């Protein structure tokens, strides 16, 4: 009997897993004992970390986009379609483009995050972002035209992709405006929903003094409730109102609807065992990356490491052995602290982060990794 592994989502987690499984299960694939299908709702793989650099004119959105069929192993069946229903009892998926359902023996959900700006009145009209291709391109034009006034960066909701990126943006903006001789005419304010500048207390403790030193104003306990694009104000649930001339936000995030409809978790995030990454509400279902509600950051490194764990577990299960691989919360992030310096953190469920002193070497390490990312997507690095 052929075991069918279906992976939904061709982002970092899904693509690394598909290629890793094709490598790991080469013999079984050759013998027809296993089949791997990767379903993605578009033909391209998108590497989102590129977007941070687009507003500052350092990268183009297309630098983060490559065709999936050029990245994914030929032994993987790639289907460009959208899953419209998941039936975990019957172990079947419905696809928008196909009349027939797709059966699976093992399902991996790697559908990632979507933006939900419409949840905050005025955000779509008044806010800019670098969490989408069009957002990053539009923000580049705004930044180039911005020579004086109030720049507000507001983290509207968590969890969001790349928890370090809001800090990186204000550090880079500060440096970029200084280099252009404009900083004295521009105020930068950073808002965060809880009582410190980052969700992780160790990173918050590290970042706060840097923000003070760089004259980046901070508003904590600021949960955006409404934006008035005409008056150019943003108001929080806590009753604080800020004026802005340029508003950059991290919009609220959500997972995809089919996950909640399938009873796998709220708001599109799958409830999982945070070590095995198995769904709590269904058999033979895994989730990884942003989709898996583990409490660790929604970051590419997390999806990458989790793909390794799920790949090893699936290979064990397919070979009839107990699955022993587990995820320990490993997360790795470079954090830009300007246009030519960066820090680095590595942590897991047990060991907290300890940010490295910012250096030019770490900045170039980050850029070098971004270039070599395509080897990660191919399952090589």
């Amino acid at each position, binding site marked *: 009997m052929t075991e069918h592994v279906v992976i939904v989502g061709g982002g970092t987690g899904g693509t690394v897993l598909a290629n890793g499984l094709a490598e790991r299960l080469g013999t079984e694939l050759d013998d027809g004992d296993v089949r791997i299908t990767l379903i993605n709702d578009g033909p391209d793989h998108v590497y989102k970390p590129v977007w941070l650099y687009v507003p500052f004119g350092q990268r183009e959105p297309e630098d983060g986009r490559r065709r999936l069929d050029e990245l994914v192993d030929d032994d993987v069946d790639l289907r460009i379609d959208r899953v419209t229903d998941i039936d975990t009892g019957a172990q079947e998926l419905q696809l928008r483009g196909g009349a027939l359902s797709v059966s699976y023996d093992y399902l991996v959900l790697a559908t990632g995050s979507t933006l939900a700006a419409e949840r905050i009145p005025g955000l779509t009209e008044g806010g800019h972002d670098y969490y989408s291709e069009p957002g990053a391109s539009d923000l580049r034009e705004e930044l180039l035209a911005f020579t004086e006034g109030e720049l507000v960066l507001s983290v509207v909701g*968590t969890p969001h992709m790349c928890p370090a990126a809001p800090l990186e943006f204000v550090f880079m903006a500060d440096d970029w405006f200084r280099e252009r001789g404009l900083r004295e005419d521009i105020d930068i304010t950073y808002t965060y929903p809880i*009582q410190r500048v980052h969700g992780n207390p160790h990173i918050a403790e590290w970042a706060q003094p840097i923000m003070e030193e760089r004259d980046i104003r901070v508003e904590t306990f600021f*949960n955006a409730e409404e934006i008035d694009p005409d008056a150019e104000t943003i108001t929080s649930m806590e009753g604080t109102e800020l004026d802005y001339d340029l508003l950059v936000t991290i919009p609220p995030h959500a997972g995809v609807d089919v996950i909640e409809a399938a009873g796998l978790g709220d708001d599109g995030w799958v409830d999982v065992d945070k070590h095995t990454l198995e769904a709590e509400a269904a058999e033979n279902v895994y989730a990884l990356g942003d989709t898996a509600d583990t409490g660790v950051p929604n970051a590419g490194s997390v999806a990458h490491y989790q793909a390794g764990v799920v790949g090893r577990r699936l290979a064990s299960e397919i070979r009839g052995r107990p699955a022993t691989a587990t995820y320990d919360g490993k997360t790795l992030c470079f954090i830009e602290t300007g246009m030519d310096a960066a820090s680095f953190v590595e942590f897991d469920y047990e060991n907290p982060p300890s940010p490295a002193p910012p250096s030019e070497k770490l900045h170039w390490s980050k850029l070098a990794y971004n270039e070599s990312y395509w080897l990660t997507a191919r399952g090589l690095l």
Partner: protein
Amino acid sequence: MTDIEPQKTVDARGATCPGPLMDLIGAIRSASSGDVIRLLSDNEQSLTDVPEWAEEADNELLAVEELDDHTEFYVEKA
């Protein structure tokens, strides 16, 4: 035991910081004025996070019940 009847319960047990507080904020965001949200958390940080935020946002922390393996917070939206 309190006899407060919440309009909604948010079970954030198992979530790491700041998950429970953000789950509470999300529930308050979609609640109506006067609604009571009950938050279940087993994260120690919630014992300081939740009262601090409730005060900051002018929502009333009606009760805190420390049970064996988790704490229950009752917050009324202003």
